[in-house]
């Protein structure tokens, strides 16, 4: 190890980078782990129905499943395009 390396250690270490990446990844994977397995299919089908009437983007829909001790909540969020479609 060269003397120069000693001065470089003030930079973020690779270990802290690893920790940060893992924390984000693991949190994300854990939250999706508890979701019911039908969720991706539900999201896909909902999107298909909505697109029959409104021209929304593929990623305009988000489905969130939350669970606490007493209840389960399914939250559906659809972002409509700025100019509403005139098909009615």
């Amino acid at each position, binding site marked *: 190890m060269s003397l120069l390396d000693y001065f470089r250690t003030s930079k973020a270490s690779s270990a802290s980078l690893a*920790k940060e990446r*893992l924390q984000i*990844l693991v949190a994300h994977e854990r939250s999706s782990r508890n979701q019911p397995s039908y969720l991706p299919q539900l999201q896909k089908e909902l999107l298909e129905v909505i697109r029959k009437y409104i021209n929304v983007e593929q990623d305009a829909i988000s489905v969130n499943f939350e669970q606490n001790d007493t209840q389960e909540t399914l939250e559906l969020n659809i972002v409509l395009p700025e100019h509403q479609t005139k098909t009615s």
Partner: protein
Amino acid sequence: MARIIVVTSGKGGVGKTTTSAAIAMGLAKKGHKTAVIDFDVGLRNLDLIMGCERRVVYDFVNVINGEATLNQALIRDKNCNLLYILPASQTRDKDALSQEGVGKILDELKKDFKYIVCDSPAGIEKGAHLAMYFADDAFIVTNPEVSSVRDSDRMLGILSSKSRRAEQNEEPIREYLLLSRYSPDRVKLGEMLSVDDVQEILSLHLLGVIPESKSVLNASNSGTPVILDEKSDAGQAYADIVARYLGEDKPHRFIDEKKGLFGKFFGSK
């Protein structure tokens, strides 16, 4: 009451078989009749690590298929007469193990043994699933490295949802972290995740840290579980782990670097 321990990790090459061999030997050395089972059908290796590869006549799959009795297939360890090894089959048939068959064998072993150590294959396929399915305790072997930590977390998810205990709403499997191939020097330099980092991410009870050690390769070269190398750091680390698992209060070792400048010149093996 017999207890079934699964040694698992998700990722390969982190030290599952080394750990299975060491802790099975450790438990037996402490006076508990122990069986260690290789679940890696098609790629058996526990027999090599235990040094009994030339004594394998019948295997796990032979017993499941009724081609041999359990007693015929179990190999008594040459170093400890309370330890028995059930080798995996070398068959390429993926479906050689069945849940029913494995359950039956474990039930039979439970009558006679205090501890049954299940050496899981890598991955999350059938062999790994069956190795953990009937477990009471899980030893999660993890290296301080991103892919290993991620895979361990994935295994934790599987243990808590796909195991027999989970399916039957029983008390969950007790999970323990074994952090292997640890280099305190590299942690100090910020090049490696620390014990605290890994524990924080996985939120697991730490059973012990096994330092990166030359003695592990030496042990596998000669086919003697590393725990029998009582002078080595890895051997001592495994002995501590067994003692802690059995309820002894042992302070953690091998977490801080052991050598100063003096030690670097007169380093240990």
